[in-house]
């Protein structure tokens, strides 16, 4: 295997050569008595340690399912045991071979993929995954890409993932759920590889690339959300590959082939995910601007051409195919606008109507702030170190600018309503430059540490040895704590009302399957948050979001009747467990004006109010779940 990378790196902040073994000078200084962690034997031991961490998390999951509270405490030690040894090895000067560095990344990928899938190893439960499962089933059953997906309407116009999943499922005979497991894992692996090769191509230093990938793996959504079977998981690696292919264009020869790869990557991003395609236009735009900003002899026009192609492709797709995406994203944009307005009026982090504020335990909030602060420090220092290189390397400024967006993401958590979710979502993109800049700085810090290590002051040496452990732990904990799932959802367990994946249970699934088999697809339904997810995905029904007015116990009053007629609602589902438990996520309905303000569960008499409305038929009863037919009733009057 060859590892030589063409010399297109940013001129290094470190005087060490790209392939110079950094440990060569310091390895003797760091060798501990009797220890051999620096030798090649370290990798198997790290693999063993991190596997024990995975087993600990599996035990915590099992404890959540079977109600063993003592074992559930193993979750955090397990997470740390998976990540910290790998991170320390990636940072260690004893990491002297690129193969071992990449093997560490593959090890981390395997462990984190297992941590994600072991939450629900036998079925898809995450609502986002169920939405794309529905789209994939539609493709397989209809042989078309334009079947309505009521659970996620824009996905019909960004059908890349469904096309891939449908092709693999139909060609291999695997069921859609197994296909989703495999495709999601492959795409996550591709993300790791794409990030690695991009960092390697930008910095031409495998140690920096390894470290950058390890840091990125601690971003809030990497382990769960970005590993899901969702359309962003397909678009994200191809976004990185587009930038990588653009970087390859600097090499002599084979320009046509590289352009083809670049265009393919742009094409896949364009047809796969809206936000990622917009990020691609912005990113290529910034690279184009930085290339144009150079003096004429060194001016780069290829990024401009790539940006023009990407912009034309995305614009054409949005204007000709995905015209509904503007309406789909408008509420988020409006929410950001409201937050900005609120900020001007001194309202910090006001919660958007219909959404519950995020409640985090204090220790997790501290870890989140600690991780953000640590990365922000590294980004500031890295930006300062990289700043002198801006004339020699045109990508320096976009890299610094992208990394500094960590302040925007951090601010979003506290300023914007629903900021924690928006911040987490944006971290997927922002952490790419953040991780690279942080890795460059850490590589430099480690190198300087080696230069000044033999001072004979054991106390300082011990402190210096503990710092990376604490830093890795805090970065990982902060990332997991601020990502998905939230604290109350972190372990699988018994049913929770309005608890996303924790609400997916056999009774809800049975009701959704019955609705599809008995009534057919596409009927208009109102229900709570869980019904909204299960009926729209497993049941292939057309569900509405802001239907709390039907659950206020007033039956078919004017407001309810007006709502039913306006939304053309035909059926209503009621889950009596909403009268026994508070909503885990803060609100009972997808858009709930009372989110975060419930002090007691919904009254049972309010939930069963349709039984007292003339003309309403109760067509399904499974004990906790009632399905009502409102057609021809007083609601529909």
């Amino acid at each position: 295997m060859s590892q030589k990378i063409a010399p297109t790196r940013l001129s290094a902040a470190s005087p060490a050569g790209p392939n110079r073994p950094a440990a060569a000078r310091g390895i003797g200084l760091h060798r501990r008595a009797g220890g051999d962690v620096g030798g090649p034997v370290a990798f198997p031991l790290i693999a063993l340690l991190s596997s024990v961490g995975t087993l600990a998390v599996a035990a915590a999951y099992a404890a959540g399912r079977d109600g063993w509270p003592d074992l559930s405490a193993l979750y955090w030690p397990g997470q740390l045991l998976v990540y910290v040894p790998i991170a320390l090895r990636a940072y260690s000067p004893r990491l002297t071979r690129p193969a071992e560095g990449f093997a560490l990344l593959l090890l981390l990928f395997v462990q984190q993929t297992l941590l994600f899938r072991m939450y629900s190893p036998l079925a898809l439960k995450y609502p986002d995954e169920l939405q794309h499962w529905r789209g994939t089933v539609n493709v397989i059953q209809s042989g078309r890409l334009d079947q309505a997906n009521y659970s996620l309407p824009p996905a019909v116009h960004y059908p890349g993932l469904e096309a891939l999943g449908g092709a693999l499922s139909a060609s291999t005979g695997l069921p859609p759920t197994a296909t989703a497991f495999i495709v999601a894992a492959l795409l996550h692996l591709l993300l790791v590889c794409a990030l690695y090769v991009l960092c390697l191509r930008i910095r031409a230093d495998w140690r920096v690339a390894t470290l950058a990938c390890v840091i990125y793996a601690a971003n809030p959504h990497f382990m769960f959300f970005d590993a899901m079977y969702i359309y962003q998981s397909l678009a994200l690696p191809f976004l990185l590959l587009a930038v990588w292919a653009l970087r390859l264009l600097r090499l002599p020869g084979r320009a046509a082939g590289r352009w083809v790869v670049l265009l393919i990557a742009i094409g896949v991003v364009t047809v796969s995910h809206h936000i990622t395609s917009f990020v691609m236009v912005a990113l290529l735009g910034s690279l184009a601007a930085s290339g144009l900003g150079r003096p004429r002899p060194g001016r780069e026009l290829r990024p401009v051409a790539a940006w023009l192609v990407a912009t034309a492709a995305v614009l054409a797709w949005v204007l000709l195919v995905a015209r509904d995406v503007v309406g789909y994203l408008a509420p988020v944009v409006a929410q950001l606008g409201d937050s900005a307005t609120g900020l001007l009026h001194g309202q910090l982090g006001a919660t958007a109507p219909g959404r519950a504020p995020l409640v985090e335990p204090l220790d997790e909030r501290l870890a989140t702030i600690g991780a953000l602060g640590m990365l922000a420090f590294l980004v500031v220092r890295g930006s300062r170190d990289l700043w002198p290189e801006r004339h020699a390397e045109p990508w320096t400024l976009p890299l610094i600018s992208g990394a500094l967006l960590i302040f925007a993401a951090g601010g979003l958590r506290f300023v914007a309503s629903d900021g924690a979710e928006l911040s987490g979502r944006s971290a997927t993109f922002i952490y790419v430059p953040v991780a690279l800049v942080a890795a460059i700085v850490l590589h430099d810090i480690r190198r300087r540490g080696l230069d000044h290590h033999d001072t004979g002051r054991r106390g300082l040496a011990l402190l210096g040895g503990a710092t990376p452990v604490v830093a890795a732990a805090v970065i990982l904990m902060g990332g997991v704590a601020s990502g998905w799932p939230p604290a109350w959802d972190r372990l699988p367990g018994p049913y929770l009302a309005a608890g996303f994946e924790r609400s997916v249970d056999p009774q809800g699934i049975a009701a959704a399957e019955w609705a599809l088999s008995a009534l057919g697809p596409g009927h208009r339904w109102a229900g709570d948050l869980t019904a909204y997810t299960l009926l729209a995905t497993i049941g292939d029904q057309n569900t509405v979001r802001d239907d709390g007015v039907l659950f206020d116990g007033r039956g078919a009053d004017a407001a309810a009747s007006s709502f039913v007629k306006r939304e053309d609602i035909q059926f209503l589902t009621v889950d009596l467990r909403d009268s026994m438990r508070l909503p885990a996520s803060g609100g009972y309905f997808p858009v709930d004006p009372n989110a975060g303000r419930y002090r007691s569960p919904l009254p049972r008499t309010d939930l069963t109010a349709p039984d007292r409305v003339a003309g309403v038929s109760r067509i399904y009863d499974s004990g906790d779940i009632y399905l009502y037919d409102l057609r021809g009733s007083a609601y529909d009057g």
Partner: protein
Amino acid sequence: MTVERDPFARPRWLVTVAVAVPLLGVADAVGPQPFAALGFAANLTVLGVAGGRALLGRAGLSAVERATVALALPIAVLVLGTIAAAALRLHLDRPLWAALVALAAEAAAVGVLARRGQPSEPRNRRRWPTARPEAGRGILWGASLTAAGAVLAAAVALSVWTAGRQAYPAFSALSAIRVGSAEPSVRIELTSEEAAPTRFIVAVAVGSARPDSVPLRLAPGVTWRKTVPAPASASVTVVADRGTRSRVPYREVNLTPRGIR
């Protein structure tokens, strides 16, 4: 730089691949499983490896970069090819995907074959040194990696086992819907998801008529179905009691008369 021994430079090998690809495509399109899956996977592999080679060569690319392209290309071809086929109003099914992958793989193989006449590409002399155990440490390596694999397998087994036997409350679902317009009737279903075989009594009342009772014994996972004639103008009430005689209704559904409020 050195000129390496390159398997892609051997015409016999390449011709074999170029001939095998359509055959694999046929196996994929019309063959039984698992041959279809194997043909599909083989052609995807050819597409990834040969396509990457045809487009980018290998000079200047690291092993990870080549592997990344080999993984990404088949995904991209499936995504873009499927969307193009859908835009052409083609029916998306296994033969179409088999043809798509076979065509792309064949094009990639031919692309590599076409470049064969050109001088072989130089390859970087530096190899990626792999970590190998020192003498006498092989046993420790093997033991550690085996133990790591065993621990991971235990973690997966624990998760699968506990997820498979996770206890959810048992339930039974009773439903009734009107079906048929020429001969209107009501289709009734009772599905048992109880923990053990359970006796039920299902009472069906159409309009003001005396309820008709049906005793049942359902094993877990079994659905009982019955269709009862019922005019649209008549209300229908179905009650399921658990046990051998009626007590408090266990499940109850009702259909109001159509057109009457």
